[in-house]
């Protein structure tokens, strides 16, 4: 079942951030901005930290594998929703990709300190709810939910 993100009357904040695929020099800029934004909103440090980590791992994935991507950030009264949608090769086998240690990363990604098959596993473990879907040849979509009251 695909969970959709819709604006409700509970929505406190909503914005989108573009990620450039392949540009490692910029990898992390979006996550750094989102982190400081959430911090400014006065969310608890642990909530900000979880959001920042899942956002950063997702951003690294987009930069590493996709042509481009977008992060849709929605802050509601009770949750922070981080949806990352990319245009790229997609993920042929999601179960395999979710396995800790499984990776298709090249040398360049590994040189940056990533690509050890930990990313999706980290995202899943830091999210209070996680949904992933992909169409091969088109791209992938990740939806991370972080509860504001931990």
């Amino acid at each position, binding site marked *: 079942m695909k969970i959709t993100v819709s604006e409700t009357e509970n929505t406190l904040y909503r914005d989108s951030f573009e990620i450039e695929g392949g540009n490692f020099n910029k990898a992390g800029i979006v996550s*750094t901005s989102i982190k400081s934004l959430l911090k400014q909103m006065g969310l608890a440090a642990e909530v900000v930290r979880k959001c920042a980590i899942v956002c950063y791992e997702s951003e690294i994935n987009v930069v590493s594998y996709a042509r481009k991507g977008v992060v849709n950030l929605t802050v509601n009264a009770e949750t922070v929703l981080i949806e990352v949608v990319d245009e790229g090769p997609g993920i042929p086998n999601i179960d395999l990709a979710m396995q800790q240690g499984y990776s298709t990363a090249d040398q360049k990604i590994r040189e940056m300190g990533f690509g050890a098959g930990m990313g999706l596993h980290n995202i899943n473990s830091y999210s209070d709810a996680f949904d992933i879907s992909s169409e091969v040849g088109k791209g992938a979509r990740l939806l991370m939910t972080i509860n504001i009251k931990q």
Partner: protein
Amino acid sequence: MKLNDVKIILDAEVIVGEEHLDLEVKTAFGADLMSDVLAFAKAGSLLLTGLTNSQVIRTANILDIAAIILVRGKKPSTETINLAKELKIPLLTTKYILFETAGRLYAKGIVGCLEKVENNSVRN
């Protein structure tokens, strides 16, 4: 201990953050794999690493790492240094290898930000 004590123990050179040497630190995490750092490191810890690219600074920012100690005499690029300045993250470099860096800090009271990982899990 203070970051200045860390500097003395490791005979380290301060690349960025001379003004933050009075920062109090109690814990550390050491790894070259940033995903492991993201999985395990706690806010306020020292990050000991041999990786010198800008993702080290980004990772430290995401996690609220107190300071980064580059080991094995690694020198960061200008880009990495500029990002550390921008994000106000102290960056030090020591000639000690990772094992020695960790050992010397541990002997003086710095502990790991966790002792062991839980069964087949990165957290929770």
